[in-house]
């Protein structure tokens, strides 16, 4: 069973991967630097499929894509937060890290709780209760369906988004 790693509000990308740890593009080095000061037990104890549950404004601050990469490299199945900072959310979608907005979950779970998540439908089961997050929609959904932004562009360029947008 997947477990909850519970974090607070306004977890910045500096907290996810401090500036002193992101002078690299090596995925394994980023994995080791993930939450190294904010949650020093994280890298040692996280298991593939575990879930980060956070409060408001997750991923605020720097645009560093190293942050969602570091989380993804630890095998995290999804980050569920009451809200996400814009660039972090977009970066996570672009690289295929599941991110789910759900306002009611944070107060209802504790660190270490069992949790089960269906990212595509944003349905979360924890503590015998079911929570509905906001399922991805629009361009984000198209990117998720393609796998990543790079995959979407490879599969048809911006024309692949014709149904979502007016391509100028």
């Amino acid at each position, binding site marked *: 069973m997947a477990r909850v790693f519970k974090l607070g509000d*306004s977890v910045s990308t500096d907290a996810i991967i401090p500036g002193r740890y992101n002078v690299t593009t090596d995925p394994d080095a980023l994995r080791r630097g993930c939450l190294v000061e904010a949650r020093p037990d994280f890298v040692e104890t996280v298991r593939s499929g575990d879930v980060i549950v956070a409060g408001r404004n997750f991923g605020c601050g720097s645009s560093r894509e190293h942050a969602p990469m570091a989380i993804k490299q630890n095998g995290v199945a999804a980050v569920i937060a009451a809200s996400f900072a814009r660039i972090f959310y977009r970066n996570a979608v672009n690289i295929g890290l599941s991110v789910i907005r759900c306002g009611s979950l944070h107060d209802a779970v504790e660190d270490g709780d069992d949790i089960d998540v269906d990212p595509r439908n944003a349905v979360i089961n924890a503590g015998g209760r079911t929570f509905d997050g906001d399922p991805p929609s629009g361009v984000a959904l198209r990117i998720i369906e393609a796998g990543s932004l*790079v995959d979407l562009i490879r599969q048809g360029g911006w024309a692949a988004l014709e149904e979502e947008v007016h391509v*100028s």
Partner: protein
Amino acid sequence: MGTLTEELFARRLGRRVAAGDTVVAEVDCAMAHDVTGPLAIAAFRSLGLPLWDATRTVFTFDHVMPANTVAAAELHALIRAFAAEHGITNVFAEGICHQVMVEKGFIQPGGLVVGADSHSTTYGALGCFSTGLGSTDIGVVFATGRTWFRIPETISVDVRGELSPGVVAKDVALHVIRRLGADAADYCAVEWSGEAVRAMSVDSRLTLCNLSVDFGAKAGLIEPDATTFEYVGGTPFELRAVRPVYAMRIEVDATSIVPQVAVHPAIDNVHDIDDVAGTPLDEVFIGSCTNGRLEDLAVVAGAFAGQQVHPRTRTVIVPASRRVYLDALAAGYIETFARAGALVLNPGCGPCLGRQHGVVAPRENVLSTSNRNYPGRMGSPDARIFLASPAVAAASALAGEIAGPGRTA
């Protein structure tokens, strides 16, 4: 008809757009720096497409410049090799990306620019819609020249009246963040207007739009006016909000604002200067994309003339760019700083992100003119970071403790 954002995208796309629409648009240029560039290059390479336009691709070296480790030097070399391979000549190692982008003329009123750095909101000060993206998005722009935008709702901030002496754009921004909260403008554009904003120099306007991202904004915008066109040159044109519908409107009484300090560990933990005055300081950092411009350095030079910084307070000054450095040199500011006992470092991001010179130790207090006071941002997570204006930073460096402008302990 609409907000500045809607008007700007309508000009660009040749049709009406409204908040909530999603569009794909070609940008004027795309910037990445020494931290975000390597991942953008990796994304670009994985697409297997040719470069969109070498003349509209910009790389800057600023976050770790000059390189302080072999790993950083390797990333710099990777970017230089990529630029050489693709004939990209817009490669700059002469200051902070956002200042260099403005100085080199990449930013024009009515423009549309993206950068692989969150503070790319800065360029809205010149009436250009600009926003920060991650590396993969920028790598895709390198290949296609385009990206997608959801047209954001807008928060209007109307700053009425005149600012008091010693109160500057930084204080206005911190005051607004204090009122609204650190995520209040998430996914929104912020339009700064009103008498106090109209009276501001371009340097000050850049500070306001820079700090817009620090309460979540996708863009910060100021309607271009005579001040804008005098700065950028070219033929003036009208880009103004026309019967806009705002998601939120707030009014700020400029006359009531006193110097503000954002106290560790959050940008919205803002206090009046008197609440924190007297806090001893181990380091003062004056610089960054928020407050490292000539106007900022002029304030500090004025305070430091004939004075010495307090012996317990390391004072680090970093001009935002080579041009700012040269102008400060010509004005005599650099000599004033050196004679006052401050350390003047090379143009770039400096100590702001804890990656190079000026790293702070556990339990140290640092007052910075930059934009982020997250734990660990400038070094040890057990250091405390205070954010304030250059005027407060200068007075505090002399006093060895947090002090208001015009006063020394």
